[in-house]
């Protein structure tokens, strides 16, 4: 009995998500402790960044994650620009902002689809993903690629927004905002969705702060923290917007937060397009970066992104550190799971929006007799079922 069997958890496109690995300690029906194990997708990016030039790094940074690639490059280019002491033209800043917000819309739609798929709501998945195509098309129109936009350059952005593109974006985001309002209604009306989300995966405000959660996860626990407002970058200091918070601290609040954020993003994009400054979109910069130490922060769709750069006067960074939001939320995720019921693990994990529901393997340790055994997601689910029946 004391053998650890590792079992694939949850998802069975053994691949759609990246595998992560959690060690659960359970006592009866409750999760007592969770130890995460990540890195199936560990590719050694931080090391590789040190071996490549700043220009090459830009594209590598972009590929840390395919979903919020623009947030990562914005963070990166800001760091390098600060080290170079160059000022980016205002028009470039606005364009960066617009792309960031489009990306946020894309991410939240994507996430809603995944959640729908997770609870077996095939039709909602199809609808959200269909509407997501609108924003994908806008991004393609703007940048030339649907996913890896390559919009950011060190010193500005690569492509300009022509009036014709601008009007198309206006039209597109209007539809997206409307549709999101509809989905929000569905999510707060539909009984099946509510049953799976209300009071599930509680993260109290106090814990959210002490465990350093970020992004919508944090804001759904009623903490008003958003890098865009607190440490404005790009054009955010000139654009009025609300920081969305909810105080439910559960999965339902996380859904609501993200829905509202999309609606907010639509307003930001509208404002930015209407107030787009004129002028150039990039400045020429040197390839060599003087020695400096820079911290750059960006609010990615999933939360605060922090990059740390140390340059040493060559054309390659001496150290580049990336802290992506999923990692920051992992500790908080463990907290949500601890004390929760085993049956609720999957939806809670999906709730923090890891790039897909990454986790793939679970191992349990019973604290009472120190017995270790493995549980597959299904067994786990069955367990949850049994447990719920007792209720």
């Amino acid at each position, binding site marked *: 009995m004391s053998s650890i069997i590792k079992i694939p958890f949850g998802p069975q496109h053994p691949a759609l998500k990246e595998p992560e690995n959690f060690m659960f300690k359970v006592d009866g029906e409750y999760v007592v402790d969770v130890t995460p194990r990540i*890195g199936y997708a560990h590719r*050694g990016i931080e*090391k590789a960044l040190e071996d490549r030039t700043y220009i090459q790094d830009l594209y590598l940074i972009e590929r840390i994650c395919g979903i919020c690639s623009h947030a990562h490059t914005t963070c990166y280019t800001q760091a390098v620009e600060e080290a170079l002491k160059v000022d980016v033209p205002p028009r470039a800043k606005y364009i960066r902002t617009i792309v960031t917000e489009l990306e946020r819309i894309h991410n939240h739609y994507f996430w809603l689809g995944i959640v729908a798929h997770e609870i077996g709501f095939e039709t909602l998945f199809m609808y959200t993903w269909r509407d997501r195509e609108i924003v994908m098309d806008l991004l393609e129109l703007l940048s030339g690629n649907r996913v890896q936009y390559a919009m950011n350059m060190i010193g500005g952005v690569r492509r300009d927004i022509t009036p014709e593109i601008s009007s198309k974006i206006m039209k597109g985001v209007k539809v997206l905002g409307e549709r999101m309002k509809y989905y929000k209604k569905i999510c707060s009306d539909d009984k099946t969705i509510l049953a799976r989300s209300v009071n599930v995966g509680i993260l109290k405000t106090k814990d959210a702060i002490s465990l350093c959660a970020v992004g919508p996860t944090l804001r759904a626990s009623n903490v008003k923290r958003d890098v865009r407002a607190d440490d404005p970058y790009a054009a955010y200091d000139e654009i009025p917007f609300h920081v969305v918070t909810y105080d439910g601290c559960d999965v339902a609040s996380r859904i609501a937060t993200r829905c509202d954020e999309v609606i907010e993003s639509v307003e930001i994009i509208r404002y930015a397009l209407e107030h787009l400054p004129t002028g150039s979109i990039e400045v020429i910069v040197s390839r060599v970066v003087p020695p400096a130490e820079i911290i750059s922060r960006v609010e990615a769709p999933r939360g605060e992104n922090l990059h740390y750069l140390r340059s040493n006067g060559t054309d390659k960074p001496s150290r580049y550190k990336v802290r992506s939001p999923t990692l920051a939320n992992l500790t908080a995720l463990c907290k949500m799971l601890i004390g929760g019921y085993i049956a609720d693990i999957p939806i809670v994990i999906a709730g923090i929006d890891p790039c897909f529901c990454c986790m793939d393997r679970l191992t349990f340790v019973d604290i009472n007799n120190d017995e270790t055994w493995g549980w597959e997601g299904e067994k786990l689910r069955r367990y949850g079922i049994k447990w719920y029946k007792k209720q």
Partner: protein
Amino acid sequence: MNSLSKDYQDIIERLKKEIGSENLIGYEIPRPRRIWFSVRKEKLVDAITHLVGKGFVHLSTITGLEDENGLEVIYHLNRKGLEASLKVEVPVKQPVLPTITPIIPGAILYEREVHELLGVVFSGHPNLSLLILPEDWPKGVYPLRKKWTHKEIKKKLSRRT
């Protein structure tokens, strides 16, 4: 702007008083919303306790790095928009730091990450097992140390299988 810099000075003075000025090796305010401290590692826990008490409750991450001068660990603390970064130098020979997880529970994963990629040991940390690297990762290979280049690591890895 002026009141802002006064605020920053205030934070620095208080920290100085708290840990003793000889233990605060240096500080810098490169631009609004950024402060850098450099403290002796003996006073690390005190300094962080003090800053957390002053509202820097959010730990963004812990960066570990190696350059010509040896190992360095940086704690990125945050109060609203204000980012305070605390640097400590760690001797390469005996890379040990006290853990800060009792003060900031959110540091658990970051300390593990630094431990794994650079070999810095955090004494008192509840669990320093592998987080990112595979189970059968060779001992003593810390990918972010300069002497381990991609080629070297790959060689070592392929020998393993």
